[in-house]
């Protein structure tokens, strides 16, 4: 006991002590020149000391788990073979003092004002270029300077979003590494980090008296609503989609601020308006928050291959200049080459130079600079002037001349002399260091920090927080950490913090009464429908596997039902006939079939494919899912080890894993069932599930009771189907008999009170369809309604005794085969009726040339 206490005191002492003993390369955020802890770090470091290493380690693992469950990641689907990039969030935040923050706040607001004025001028009279304050050839060489936006940008209202990546040099001066004016630059990552971090370190946050983010976003939300110009405006956040590395940030922010998350194909233009394609037809959009590359938003007037926005957007934008923020074309002012000229602009705009400057940089379109750099290449890092800005951690990678091969060096010299206008050269700058919690110790880690400025109704405001990224000490200029080791940024305050206002739960006075009439994009309805189908498919496949493995484990002679299980497996593997057929070794055969159904990447209904599809659909419809629901899908993520473990496991181990998997699905469905508003989105999710369940059940019955009528097999087959349909207990409590075919068929096919029966599924689908907008004119039924009416009516008219009778069971076969045939047709009919707007893909026509 005494020894334990002594050791823990020693560990505590060494946590800060060993940090202080280490050597610093640059400016130390936490320690001053004499190695004393700076005042604004004292509360945090003292608190860390008090917690002790065990508690810190436990908190660190809670952060890790929370990050994983929240699903913060870059590149969710960018490369199928590469696992999702791991996002790491440090337990130790970066702390900024009141004085530092006041200075940064003022300096960033000035920079935002300068960027705003420069942007408006470049797209208007361009006086700054005419007078040579900004080199015209820098602007004209930038592919992000979009000429068709001339005249629109100055009418668009002020620049809405500005972000800057900052580093602090050896002398403790802040400099700007990169500016972001194109998109929201991953602000959603910063919010997600804060939410996760507060969950684990909220007590420390409060003790340090750090400033909350929610009031800032509240302001932002109001400012955007007022920019949109009408009550209950329809505001959409335009994302490039799940393949973009910032998709998480977009989806998170859209949810956080309550905006629709849309992709280019969800939108279309008509006349002078912008519309969203929804289940109920076209709905006008009042404000588009653009998180896509401006060059790609209008294939008609801009890059002909760009469909990240709807063709015709600029035409609509010209008639409604305030429709898009940031205005299309805004990226030009983030051009790195502007760095050396910004002070000239500031003199014009503010009447004084900037307090916060860009890191020393040369634009290689300037003759003198280019000649100098060509002669002194080794001192510089060369980067693209424009590319790779809007993305955290993916800034254009600098080419450090010293580390190039002879051929690369030759190519770089060539590029500088041929296309210098698109390049900048920078000298290595220093990064300050701050304590990072790693391996139970506090380590010095250099970092850069991204700070966000937004235009609110009272002018520019800086988000009191940020996204800090650990940088490679030797990556001289850029934030280049695709591995994403990040930190929260705490801004301290002398004032008492106002009561907690989370945007997740709006205060009564700011809440609008809004009852589930949130519009559903056709595409999202499609995604939800298939999410429902894949979910149910995974459930069925896992039940079949569980049934098969149970019977393998409990092998008990002729009554064991192995054949029945095998027939169900074979149906699901129908694309894979090679695995079936052999009777020689029944056990091994079943095991092999099972593995194939689990892990075959080409199996249409294999578990691995189904999981991939669940994750894909869930991700596409992500802004419609609650966080809890999303978290339960963690094991379906493409890089999760679940499938590998399951396909490698022996039957008993596999059974445990299958139970876990089924529990996850049940949890997901439970969350959706309990939390999702009963709007059209819900209808599609539930219809997908019902349709898939009806199909699987019909197919199972067809496999078990029609094609083989061996009476010896019938009892185990009846047991199996009751098990698969989760109706064993219902049957037992109702009949207290061994299963008999007519009673089982009645329970599974016709009983509309059994939530697992075919009739129940059909009735549910029918109710959903009745509630959906029809759009059908005249008296005739739409195809989907006609099909469901036919199926439901014939189920209701069925005579169960007749079905089960007869040695050939031709009645049963006819009835069930009819379902197996018509249900996919119904699925297609629903698709044609409701999702076809989503399928309208615009494309370019070929121009005629001489």
């Amino acid at each position, binding site marked *: 006991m005494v020894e334990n206490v002594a050791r823990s005191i020693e560990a505590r002492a060494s946590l800060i002590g060993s940090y202080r003993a280490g050597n610093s390369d640059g400016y130390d955020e936490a320690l001053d020149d004499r190695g004393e802890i700076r005042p604004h770090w004292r509360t945090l470091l003292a608190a860390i000391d008090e917690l002790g290493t065990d508690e810190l380690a436990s908190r660190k693992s809670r952060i890790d788990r929370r990050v994983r469950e929240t699903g913060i990641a870059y590149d969710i689907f960018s490369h199928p073979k590469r696992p999702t990039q791991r996002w790491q969030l440090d337990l130790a935040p970066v702390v900024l003092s009141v004085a530092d923050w006041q200075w940064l706040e003022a300096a960033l607001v000035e920079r935002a004002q300068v960027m705003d004025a420069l942007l408006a001028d470049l797209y208007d009279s*361009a006086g700054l*270029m*005419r*007078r*040579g304050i900004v080199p*015209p*050839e820098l602007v*004209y*060489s930038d*592919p992000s300077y979009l*000429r*068709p936006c*001339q005249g629109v940008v100055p009418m668009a209202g002020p620049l809405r979003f500005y972000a800057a990546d900052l580093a602090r040099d050896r002398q403790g001066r802040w400099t700007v590494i990169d500016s972001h004016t194109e998109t929201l630059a991953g602000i959603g990552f910063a919010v997600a980090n804060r939410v996760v971090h507060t969950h684990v370190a909220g007590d420390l946050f409060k003790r340090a008296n750090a400033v909350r983010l929610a009031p800032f976003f509240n302001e932002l939300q109001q400012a955007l609503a007022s920019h949109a110009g009408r009550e209950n405006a329809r505001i959409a956040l335009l994302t490039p989609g799940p393949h973009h590395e910032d998709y998480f940030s977009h989806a998170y922010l859209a949810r956080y601020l309550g905006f629709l998350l849309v992709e280019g194909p969800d939108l*279309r*233009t*008509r*006349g*002078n308006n912008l519309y969203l394609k929804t289940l109920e037809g076209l709905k006008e959009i009042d404000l588009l928050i653009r998180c896509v590359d401006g060059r790609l938003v209008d*294939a*008609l*007037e801009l890059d*002909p291959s760009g469909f990240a926005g709807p*063709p*015709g957007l600029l*035409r609509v934008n*010209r008639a409604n200049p305030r429709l898009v923020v940031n205005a299309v074309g805004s990226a030009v002012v983030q051009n790195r080459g502007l760095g050396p000229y910004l002070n000239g602009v500031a003199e014009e705009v503010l009447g004084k130079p900037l307090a916060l400057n860009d890191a020393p940089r040369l634009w290689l379109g300037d*003759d003198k600079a280019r000649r100098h750099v060509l002669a002194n290449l080794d001192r510089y890092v060369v980067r693209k002037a424009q590319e790779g800005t809007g993305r955290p951690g993916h800034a254009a990678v600098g080419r450090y001349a010293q580390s190039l091969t002879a051929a690369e060096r030759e190519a770089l010299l*060539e590029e500088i002399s*041929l*296309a210098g*206008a698109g390049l900048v050269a920078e000298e290595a700058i220093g990064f300050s260091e701050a304590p990072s919690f790693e391996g139970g110790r506090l380590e010095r880690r250099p970092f850069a920090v991204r700070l966000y400025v937004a235009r609110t109704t009272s002018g520019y405001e800086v988000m009191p927080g940020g996204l800090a990224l650990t940088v490679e000490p030797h990556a001289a200029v850029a934030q280049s950490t695709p591995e994403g080791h990040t930190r929260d940024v705490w801004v301290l305050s002398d004032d008492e913090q106002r009561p907690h206002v989370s945007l997740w739960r709006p205060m009564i006075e700011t809440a609008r009464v809004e009852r589930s009439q949130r519009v559903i994009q056709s595409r999202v309805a499609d995604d939800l429908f298939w999410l429902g189908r894949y979910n149910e498919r995974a459930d069925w496949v896992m039940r079949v596997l569980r049934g098969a493995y149970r019977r393998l484990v409990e092998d008990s002679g002729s009554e064991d039902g192995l054949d029945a299980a095998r027939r169900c497996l074979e149906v699901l593997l129908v694309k894979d006939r090679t695995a079936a057929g052999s009777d020689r070794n029944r056990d091994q055969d079943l095991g092999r079939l099972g593995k194939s159904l689990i892990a075959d990447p080409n199996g249409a209904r294999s578990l691995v494919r189904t999981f991939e599809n669940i994750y894909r659909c869930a991700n596409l419809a992500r802004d419609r899912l609650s966080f809890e629901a999303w978290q339960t899908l963690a094991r379906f993520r493409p890089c999760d080890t679940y499938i590998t473990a399951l396909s490698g496991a022996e039957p008993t181990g596999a059974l445990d894993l299958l139970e876990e998997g089924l529990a996850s699905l049940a949890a997901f469905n439970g969350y959706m069932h309990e939390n999702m508003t009963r709007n059209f989105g819900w209808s599609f999710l539930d219809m997908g599930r019902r349709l898939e369940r009806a199909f699987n059940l019909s197919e199972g019955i067809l496999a078990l009771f029609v094609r083989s009528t061996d009476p010896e097999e019938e009892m185990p087959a009846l047991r199996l189907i009751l098990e698969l349909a989760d109706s064993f207990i219902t049957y037992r409590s109702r009949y207290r008999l061994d299963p008999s075919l007519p009673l089982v068929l009645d329970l599974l096919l016709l009983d509309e009170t059994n939530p697992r029966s075919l009739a129940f599924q059909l009735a549910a689908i029918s109710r959903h369809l009745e509630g959906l907008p029809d759009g059908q004119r005249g008296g005739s039924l739409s195809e989907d309604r006609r099909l469901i009416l036919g199926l439901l009516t014939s189920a209701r008219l069925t005579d169960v005794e007749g079905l089960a009778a007869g040695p050939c069971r031709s009645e049963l076969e006819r009835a069930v085969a009819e379902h197996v045939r018509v249900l996919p047709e119904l699925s297609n009919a629903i698709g044609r009726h409701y999702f076809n707007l989503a399928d*309208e*893909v*615009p*494309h*370019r*026509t*070929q*121009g*005629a*040339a*001489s």
Partner: protein
Amino acid sequence: MIFEVRHKTHYRYSQPVAQSQHLIHLAPRSDVRQSVRSHGMIIEPAPAMRYDGEDAFGNPVSILDIEEPHREFVLKARSTIATSTPEAVDFSRTSAWDELDGALYGEGKPCDLDVVQYRCSSRLTPATRNIRDYAAVSFAPGRPVLEAAHELTQRIFRDFRFDAAATDVSTPIADVLRTRRGVCQDFAHLALAFLRAHRVPARYMSGYILTKPPAGQPKLQGSDASHAWISVWSPESGWCDFDPTNGLVVAEEHIVLALGRDYGDVCPISGVIVGGGHHTVSVGVDVVKVGHNEAR
């Protein structure tokens, strides 16, 4: 001379088109060298919305939004234009190509952005080592800029073969330089890349040339369709047009529709459609001389 130009474009689609939007550069711009007497367009089916304006380069532009389902799209443009022969320029008395900075960024006077912007490479006229090296022969230090430009266009005319089958609208100029074959648009792009690699302001000209040649003279390449050539700037004589496809200095027979950095800025018709399946397009151009310019 006074010309009448009829330009008909006809798209046929294998499937119905639900929506089509078009960006049109078919109305000729007025210019020091030409004045537009009349212009009109007939569009079928009629667009739900039509926007007429001026693009960033000062060209007349129309944007059409057709909302009614259709399987054909026909656009007939008809214009009457009077052209005049530009004043003869003594190329040897223009400024040296490597001393243009002085004229463009001189102390105390505002920079002429309408010239400077055409110095930069564009998407379809990128600088490469081969491009720079091919052109370098014509750019001896201190050489008058229009002399160099003229020689370059003559070299293109000599070294390259007109071959409508060799390229399409997406062929990069690096390929054209390698195969030495192409059409007027390719040669214009090449000439622009050569000039811009040496930071000479040069712009892409889209338009027509006279279809029926005067008696006894050969018909020029590029007639019966839209044509393309270039315009090069010098401090002494402003913009001067060269036609690399025909190895000419432009006189009265060229009619300008629009100008820009490259074809991408001035494409006569470009469109985005929803639906439509496959499509074919046919273009017919007639340029007829209808009279001489009255005395001004």
